[in-house]
């Protein structure tokens, strides 16, 4: 088993009397994009501030490449690239000078690296323009270039797609997937845009009110033994419902002449054969994709205070 690149261990954060983060633990592995989901005020930004050392930890530990961020800040932070909330760059400096500024603060970053990073995020043509003239998308891209400048092993991004248009979101997603795989970087991405996370992440954690609700694999659905909802369009829906209730399932939905069942992949195969054998014509079988949205609501249900 590989060592996690980023590890939160029973992290707590108190601000005054408020217990903002409670016993939060999870790991992010190299090459993996880990989604950090939660509604507004769940504590995502607070957690990220602790991970990058902007805010102290009340108890517990955060380890980056096995260096503790509290006890061994200098060693830990050198592996981290980050954007906390918005990419807050210097508006009165040019794109290139912004990067030069951060390059001077890290070891072994050359002028050549700056040029390459600018090219990668497609900003070479505006390198001499002041950032105050950039669009939000350009600023996000420069923010990413800034975060990647010193070849970090962990990338920590707070709502990186915030304010981007669909094309921008897609580009960001593709870029992050690419660097995760090619440079074997562990990426932690926070968001409340669930559909977005679903396309980007390998695993995700859901937090609410500062507590971890669950950690899951994105691709866990569609496997043989995992139940999903299927919609079946058939020529005799009432007859089909009756037969299925007799033989296969306890509950069958019938809505607008469409049958809806919650079964595993294995079972749906049998159901199709069974209906065909009973002289029914099947026009269409669709698996309802359960979105993160559903899982999110499912997981956080009843916990909304």
């Amino acid at each position, binding site marked *: 088993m590989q060592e996690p690149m980023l590890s939160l261990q029973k992290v707590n954060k108190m601000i005054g009397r408020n217990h903002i983060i409670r016993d939060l633990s999870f790991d992010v592995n190299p090459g993996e994009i880990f989604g950090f989901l939660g509604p507004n005020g769940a504590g995502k930004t607070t957690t990220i*501030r602790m991970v990058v050392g902007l805010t102290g930890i009340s108890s517990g530990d955060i380890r980056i490449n096995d260096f503790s961020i509290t006890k061994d800040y200098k060693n830990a*932070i050198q592996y981290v690239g980050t*954007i906390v909330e918005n990419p807050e760059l210097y508006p*009165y400096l040019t794109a290139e000078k912004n990067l030069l*500024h951060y390059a001077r603060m*890290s*070891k072994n970053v050359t002028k050549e690296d700056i040029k390459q990073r600018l090219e990668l995020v497609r900003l070479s043509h505006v390198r001499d323009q002041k950032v105050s003239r950039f669009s939000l998308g350009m600023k996000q891209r420069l923010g990413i270039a800034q975060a990647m400048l010193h070849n970090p092993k962990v990338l920590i991004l707070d709502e990186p797609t915030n304010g981007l248009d669909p094309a921008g979101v897609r580009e960001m997603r593709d870029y992050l997937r690419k660097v995760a795989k090619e440079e074997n970087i562990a990426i932690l991405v926070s968001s409340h845009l669930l559909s977005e996370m679903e396309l980007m992440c390998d695993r995700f954690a859901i937090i609410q009110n500062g507590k971890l609700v669950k950690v899951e694999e994105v691709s866990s659905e569609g496997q043989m033994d995992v139940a999903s909802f299927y919609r079946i369009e058939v020529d005799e829906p009432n007859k089909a419902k009756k037969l299925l209730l007799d033989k296969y399932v306890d509950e069958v939905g019938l809505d607008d002449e469409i049958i809806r069942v919650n079964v595993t992949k294995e079972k749906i195969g049998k159901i199709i054969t069974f209906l065909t054998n009973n002289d029914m014509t099947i026009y269409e079988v669709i698996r309802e994709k359960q979105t993160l949205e559903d899982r999110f609501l499912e997981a956080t249900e009843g916990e909304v205070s």
Partner: protein
Amino acid sequence: MLLKLIQNEWMKLFSRIGTYVMCGILLLGLVTTAAFTFYTKTQEEDLPSKEQWEQELLQENENLAVDEQETNNNYILNYARSNQAINTYRIENDISPYEVTNVWTYIESNNMLIQLIGVFIIIVGASIVAHEFNKGTIKLLLVRSASRNQILASKFITTILFGLFLLALLFGLSFVVGSILFGFDGTAVHLSYIDGEVVERSRILFLGLSYLSSSVKLVMLTSFAFMISTIFRNETIAIALSVMLMFVGSQATNILALFTDWAKYSLFANTNLDVYFTNGPMVEGMTLLFSVVVLIIYLSLFLFLAFLFFKKRDVSI
């Protein structure tokens, strides 16, 4: 690392329009004083005769003698005594208080532009930290391997360097402009009254001394602004408090000195180091060493608080 951080701060400082506006205003000030001095300059034929200025000094001494009798403020007393002594010395040794305008009198008159520089570096000192908090850029600055102490130190050093830069600009340009417009004619001597004796000093030495003494005040005020801006993370409060302190601090201390000797422990009783080379201190019994020690204590306190707050506090913007 520290050197690179200072390089960064300098780059940011000189990428902002405000910095150039400050330099521009300073140059404008120089041009104005040069023009003013040029059109009002005294030439050989304007100088009053020996009888005339002797008469004036004798009259002044009479007034000062009255002051000396009536006051019990140490500062006024010193002023009256030393000026009487200097006036007498001038009459005895035939050194006129009037002289033709030359490069030294011009530089001396530019001393007031140091106040302007004071306001400028207070602004820089107040904004160099608070601005990063306002704009949120502090976050990306702190999440690197530079320690918070290094970052704050680089900002303080940059502010002081900027102050020195402006002073050098002022002094250098004053010298160049002054020597072209007014030349070097005239007495190159400065009289001061120390320990009951009148001493002749080289003019250049005295100028250097008074610029240096003004810079001491600037450093103290800048550190104060720097501390306030680091603690409150707000430029406006820092600038307002420091500029106010700059303009009323000395007066307030003078008033305080009327009532109590404790005034000697206040910051502004000690910032004018040149009094030890001219009229004597505000409160009897103060020495140069005493002032230097008090200044160092104040400076350490300001910086200690600034570093403490910068290091300890959470960044949650």
